[in-house]
């Protein structure tokens, strides 16, 4: 019986080596069985390493993918509640891009070292994590990347934004893997105009990408705990993600 059929999985907190060799907390959800399985690094949103994003990691594991979510705020607030940690990280200026890439690289290495890994790894991120998924895919050699409503890729964030959140458009040429982008037509960060600019840039660079934008949905339409949740967009988005992962993460390397 396939893992997709049984949804058997297990999840636990582990320690991984992140940027600069720092030991950071991470949440690992993996399918039961020997595999081999593809894997994905789950990049949490700005509100942090929270319960709802851990649920996302478990959903990937129940569908047959190893999912590992590093706690990007571990250094600022080890052991803290996710909302306190997010506040501490915000007060400290946010997560620097270089550190993010190092943490994702560490998470990738952790997944690949698992006996049940097939050696293929993607990233997926939501909100600020969507931007960071794109950043990772233009900085590291990945097999696939998913960016869900990633603001700050095309236009700069507003004045007062923490740390060095530079636009990433000029990095498009460095994209190392197929990219799936999921957006809401009503979103302001990114706007549909920004999405169109990114699509044009990806086309010009000859990159493999597919974008889907949902009418009636704005930012954070996957987030079941918030009023922004849009069930039709979220269900179709999940289907798009699993179709994409099936094409790029399944099988052997």
């Amino acid at each position, binding site marked *: 019986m396939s893992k997709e059929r049984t949804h058997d999985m297990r999840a636990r907190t582990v320690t991984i080596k992140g940027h600069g060799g720092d030991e950071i907390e991470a949440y690992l959800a993996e399918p039961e069985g020997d595999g081999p399985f593809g894997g994905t690094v789950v990049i949490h*949103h*700005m*509100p942090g390493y929270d319960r709802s994003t851990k649920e996302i990691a478990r959903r990937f594991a129940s569908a047959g993918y190893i999912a590992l979510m590093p706690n990007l705020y571990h250094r*600022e*607030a080890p052991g*803290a*509640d996710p*909302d*306190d*940690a997010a*506040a*501490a990280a*915000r*007060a*400290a200026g*946010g997560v620097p891009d270089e550190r993010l890439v190092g943490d994702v690289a560490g998470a990738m290495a952790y997944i690949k070292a698992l006996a049940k890994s097939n050696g293929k790894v993607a990233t997926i991120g939501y*909100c*600020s994590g969507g931007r960071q998924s794109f950043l990772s895919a233009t900085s590291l050699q990945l097999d696939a990347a998913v960016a869900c*409503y990633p*603001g*700050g890729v095309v236009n700069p*964030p*507003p*004045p*007062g*934004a*923490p740390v060095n*959140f530079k636009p990433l458009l000029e990095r498009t040429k460095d994209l190392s893997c197929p990219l799936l982008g999921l957006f809401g037509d009503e*979103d*302001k*960060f990114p706007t549909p105009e920004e999405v169109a600019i990114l699509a044009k840039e990806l086309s010009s660079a000859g990159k493999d990408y597919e974008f889907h934008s949902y009418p009636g949905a*704005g*930012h*954070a339409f996957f987030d079941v705990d*918030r*009023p*922004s949740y849009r069930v039709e967009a979220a269900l179709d988005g999940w289907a798009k993600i699993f179709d994409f992962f099936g094409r790029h993460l399944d099988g052997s390397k």
Partner: protein
Amino acid sequence: MCTYHTEHVKLAGSGKGPEGWFSLAEASVYYDHPVHAPSEHSVNVDFLNRSLGPRARVAVELDPASARDLAHALLAAAEQAAALSR
């Protein structure tokens, strides 16, 4: 959307967090996702003392009209304090 925008304010005063009263050092003020308030966005204030760790925090999430009313009330109280100290 994640607005990213954050105003940082240095403070002198005290707040009551999960472990009791502590001295405040600063506040982060931002319009972004709430953790608990039933809206997509809210005006959020984190009263902090980072030297005491991440739990030294008093958090509020306000709808924008409430935030404006609160700001006016704070200004009125501060004006009164200034008048009484003259």
